[in-house]
């Protein structure tokens, strides 16, 4: 799927990014909030189901954290950071459209208790790097 000229994407400076279009917000030394980017949300278009790893399950860097389904397609979500899922966004079960409407705020996906944050942070892209990455897609 190629992106149309009609779309513009928001990239936030205070987040880190993956090539698979997830974002990570470092809350403190161990806690990370995870979601999908505005680019991913716009490309997916009309999210109708979100299925997430359960609370207390372990996730690994760039391994599956769940799936997001839109009218047209299904996409895997990859965890930017390894650790334990401590919270999932319960609202998405009944309001999956929050992922489209507010990918960086109300539409966040999970909170992770990171076990290797310092090392893994370096593997993620800065806002500037991610912006130039999606420009070339």
């Amino acid at each position, binding site marked *: 799927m190629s992106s149309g000229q009609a779309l513009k994407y928001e990239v936030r400076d205070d987040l880190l990014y993956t090539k698979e279009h997830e974002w990570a917000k470092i809350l403190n030394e161990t806690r990370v909030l995870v979601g999908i980017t505005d680019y991913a949300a716009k490309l997916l278009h009309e999210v109708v189901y979100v299925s997430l790893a359960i609370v207390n399950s372990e996730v690994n860097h760039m391994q599956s954290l769940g*799936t997001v389904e839109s009218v*047209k397609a299904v996409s895997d979500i990859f965890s930017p950071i390894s650790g334990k899922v401590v919270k999932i966004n319960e609202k998405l079960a009944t309001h999956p459209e929050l992922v489209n409407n507010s990918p960086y705020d109300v539409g966040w996906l999970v909170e992770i208790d990171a076990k290797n944050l310092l090392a893994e942070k370096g593997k993620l892209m800065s806002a500037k790097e991610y912006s130039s990455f999606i420009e070339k897609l």
Partner: protein
Amino acid sequence: MKRTHLYVYHKEHANIVEFAGYEMPLWYSGISAEHLAVRNSCGIFDISHMGRLIVEGNGATEFLDYLVPSNVLGLHGGKGLYTVLCNESGGIIDDIIIYRLGDKFLVVVNAANLDKDLQWMSSKNNFNARITDITTKSSMLAVQGPDASTVLQKTLGIELSTMARFNIIEQNLQIGNLLIARTGYTGEDGFELVINSDRPEKALALWNKIISADSLPCGLGARDTLRLEAGLCLYGQDLNDKITPVGASLSWVVSKAKGKYVGKQVIDSQMKSKAMVSRVGIEMIGEGIPRKDHGIYRGSKIGEITSGTFSPLLKKGIAVGYVSSEHSSAGLEVEIDIRGRRVPAKVVKPPFYDQTLYGWKRIKKD
């Protein structure tokens, strides 16, 4: 990459996707909004990528009649029919619409199949019929939904509400030479217009005029959810050259009284025996969206999904698939393997919507 005459509009207003070698709009305002506009009022699609062939000459009628299992000899002027092109083994090469316009025919084929169809038709043309590909020299729009005739009446200034379904007329209007057919592929009432002009501004002017008469521009995303909700086939997914019209539950296109035609032997014998597989509708009971290639189970595997999506109208997963015939009765509970998870679903007879409320057979309220 090919572009239709309306590409300038799409580029500015839509999310573009590659489809059958064309840069086409996937959606403008959103798949669900566009889908619901067609179910509740009126939407407009650019379908110029679809192949348009004019077949004419002395042997044209006999030629087309030989190519398809339907009765073309009995097709009156000003009428169209949905049918299939089959190979010698009865397998479907394409699903098409043939319209008769006096002594010539308009044949509308799928975009991805145009070259293949042209080759096939030429190879079977021992009738001296003349086949002209007018795809790039014309545009085609679909205006669909319960308000379609009102919208077009406003736009074109001609009375269309009394026109019968599957009829076609030719009109020379200020906007240009138009073929107007009361057909479509959304399950709704509606019209398909062919603008006979290679000037893009002609198509664009008509497109803009129809939009300003209260219809929403719709992309391929909504076209797919609409046709699936109506239970209509998509070539390449639900139909292919291994499946015969009998196997595809399209026996109604086969004229039983017909003489010789391509694929007759196989199709005739299948019409007498019971089909091994049936095309059925699947409606999810549990959560999840069935997609192409997902398995259909009743204990063991009984079939496969060929097209699946989220229904914007029903707000749940729907699909079309093939099951072995003994498992094809409506109401039967099945399970769909959605990426390793077995989710409860049931067999239904499409269309998926309530036909008293939606679709061209709906009971009018006013």
